[in-house]
């Protein structure tokens, strides 16, 4: 091979390399840098070793935030996946209702995250919000500013309202790809509605469902904007997720070292969980492809 030809190729990838360097590699290196040093400002740094990592891993605050994240993700997955499937099943497959439903479903996904937070922040207020005021008028004690449980309910409702559509649209795409003959055969076989769902619709939705679950897990695990706008992490620390805690540490308290260590740990957790999901997904995909290739 001619060497000069190969060297020219580097110019083609150079823009991408520069972009990735400035947007990901250099910031990440800076964070690593901060995480092993201590500073009192004035650009003076002292070597701190693994001290910040130990501090973060030994702090109750970190573990509490992490468990809040896990609980939150588990709850919204447990609600959004079945609800998304149910809505997708109920949507019409043909006729004028299809575009109407699709547009309605896509609407929440088009709203910016901080706007979603603001909508729900106002919606839930006891004095002027439609939801908060109505509940108060009905005699239900609801106040997301003071009651941790109410704050959680509000945030979960908001996330369900915002993101169930994604699951719906993915499942719907899986459902419409099922040929009519399957439903006709099921009618001839005398299958119940449950059997049709269990043996025809669910298997056909399996792959899109895995994608939906992965996306919803990652997004919900990194949630920041909406709860920050609605509750600001309160009342107390009850809705302080890892991301909110991180910002508090870094910008609120200006503890750059611990914040950097925490970022790296947070990053590694997401990386690890996504890798596990990815492995499981590709294994399932490969298995069905392998079985399919006999045919």
């Amino acid at each position, binding site marked *: 091979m001619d060497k000069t030809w190969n060297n020219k190729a580097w110019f083609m990838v150079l823009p991408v390399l520069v972009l990735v360097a400035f947007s990901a590699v250099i910031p990440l290196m800076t964070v690593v840098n901060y995480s092993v040093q201590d500073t009192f400002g004035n650009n003076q740094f002292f070597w701190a070793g693994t001290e910040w990592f130990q501090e973060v891993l030994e702090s109750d605050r970190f573990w509490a935030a992490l468990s809040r994240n896990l609980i939150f993700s588990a709850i919204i997955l447990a609600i959004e996946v079945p609800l998304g499937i149910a809505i997708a099943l109920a949507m019409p497959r043909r006729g004028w209702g299809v575009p109407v439903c699709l547009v309605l479903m896509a609407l929440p996904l088009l709203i910016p995250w901080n706007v979603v937070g603001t909508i729900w922040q106002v919606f839930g207020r006891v004095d002027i919000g439609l939801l908060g005021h109505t509940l108060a008028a009905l005699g239900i004690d609801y106040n997301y500013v003071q009651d941790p449980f109410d704050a959680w309910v509000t945030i979960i409702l908001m996330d369900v309202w915002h993101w169930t559509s994604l699951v719906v649209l993915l499942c719907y795409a899986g459902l419409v790809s099922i040929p009519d003959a399957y439903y006709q055969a099921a009618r*001839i076989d*005398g299958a119940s509605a449950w059997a049709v769902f269990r043996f025809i619709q669910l298997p056909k939705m399996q792959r899109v469902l895995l994608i939906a679950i992965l996306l919803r897990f990652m997004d919900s695990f990194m949630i920041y904007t909406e709860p920050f706008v609605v509750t600001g992490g309160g009342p107390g620390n009850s809705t302080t997720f890892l991301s909110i805690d991180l910002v508090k540490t870094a910008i609120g308290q200006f503890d750059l070292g611990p914040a950097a260590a925490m970022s790296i740990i947070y990053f590694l957790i997401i990386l690890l969980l996504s890798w596990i999901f990815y492995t499981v997904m590709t294994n399932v995909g490969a298995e069905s492809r392998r079985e399919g290739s006999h045919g």
Partner: protein
Amino acid sequence: MARIVLDNIAHAYGPAPTGPQDYALKRLDHVWEDGGAYALLGPSGCGKTTLLNIISGLIIPSHGRVHFDGTDVTELPTAARNIAQVFQFPVIYDTMSVANNLAFPLRNRGVAKDEVDKRVREVARMLNLTALLDRKARGLTADLKQKVSLGRGLVRADVNAILFDEPLTVIDPQLKWQLRAQIKALHREFDLTMVYVTHDQTEALSFADKVVVMYDGEVVQMGTPEDLFVRPAHTFVGYFIGSPGMNVLPAEVQGRRAVLPGGHEVALDAFYPNLPQAARMEIGVRPEFVHLSASGAGLPVTVKRVDDIGRMKVARVDLDGRGLNVLAAENAVIDGDKSRIVFEPGHVHLYADGHLVDPQMHEQAGG
């Protein structure tokens, strides 16, 4: 098993049909005898699948009644009709094993477990699937998947009829023969009423005792493969069945002669005294019954092309600007581009507006 009667059936998919063009299936009366093997043959879009779905109950016809053994089942849902249907693309339950696929229709009907196991084993034996019972259905080849979906129909002991909707479309050519032979063997052994939809004439003729030819929403002929060949009731049947199809020429009837546009005359077998007025008259004769004449007799033609199709030769000839196909023996010598053709007596049919005119009845057949 049942005798299936379609009484004055018609179907339009749209809600308010205004004329014949809106009907996927025009008025038809038809009887499927108990234990018969029928092929439903016709081009795409002629209403074959609609007719099949009316029998199985997936569609309720806009007009007419469906009777199984004298019982009116028109409004009865599919599951209650005890019909089995095999679709164009294999429908199997991916996540289940072959055995569970076969057991599925029985379990849905609440059949006892012992009985289910017994039937599944029987059907697996009938279809040579015994070795595959524990395999997941997802990984099977297309022909095995079709067998499994056929098995789901056979497993019900009291099934009224088995309907096939172009079941061999996705099967490899060399396996088509095997699977068709196996279906045929099942028919002979168990005396099942079978209706087999196809647009492939070889498939239809080799499968069925009776072939029903459909064209544009109507049944144009029902008969044995021989009937369809020797006496096509409609020019479409003549054209669709046989390779190459029947030669059709416009003609004017004068007594016992048909006069072709070029002025040449063809002898007819009978008088047709009561021909329908203002109908479009045509004569039809199959390439098998047109012979190149060695002597000087016959109609003068120009030979355009000779194709060797294996055991026979097809000569494409030109008679006064109209093309005809002539079948000749493999060893026939066709030399020169001028020749003469004669039509074999008894095989020249007269058609009025596409329908065969019956010389005995003096009436328009099928009208």
